[in-house]
């Protein structure tokens, strides 16, 4: 199921994503020709969800006192933050896969 990340059973979900998934769920029963539209919007919302989350996390990690522009140090920190978040998510997923296929229960 490609919708698992944004399913309503996910506890730590942003309210906007919950709203959007409800709308898209209702749509799917209205007309089968809407399925491609629903898939597209779901994909887009998955992206929005990540951007909301990452902005929040990276703001906390990188932003000091807000000034008249984004300092280059802050910009660099935010870019690293996004990249390292993706790296660590991949790392966790890969290692979990290795651990589970090595017979450890």
């Amino acid at each position, binding site marked *: 199921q490609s919708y698992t990340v944004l399913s309503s059973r996910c506890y730590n979900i942003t309210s906007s994503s919950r709203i*959007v998934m409800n709308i898209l769920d*209702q749509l799917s029963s209205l007309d089968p020709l809407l399925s491609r539209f629903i898939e597209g919007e779901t994909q887009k919302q998955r992206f929005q969800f990540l951007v909301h989350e990452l*902005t929040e996390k990276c703001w906390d990690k990188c932003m000091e006192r807000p000034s008249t522009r*984004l300092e280059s140090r802050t910009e660099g920190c935010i870019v690293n933050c996004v*990249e390292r978040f993706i790296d660590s998510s991949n790392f966790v997923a890969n290692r979990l896969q290795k651990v589970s296929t090595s017979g450890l229960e």
Partner: protein
Amino acid sequence: MESLGGAGGRMSSSQREELMDQVKQQIVIANTQELLTKMGEKCFTKCISKPGSSLDSSEQKCLAMCMDRYMDSWNLVSRTYTNRLQREKNFR
């Protein structure tokens, strides 16, 4: 959202178009509200250290700057994430 067809019934293409436009609009509104909520929380935290009996001018100035910086951050995260997705796609 009013139902534009019976359960499982097919809609006309203009009804479908209108429905898709309405949905896209609702999605934009939901995401904008999300952004505003988070921005409000973060900027309150950054700017209001000692709550007084009103927002003084320095607090208001801080809030305004904070909002702009939060938008800048949001856009930067969006660009960075998009670029990363593109790089991973090219790698495969």
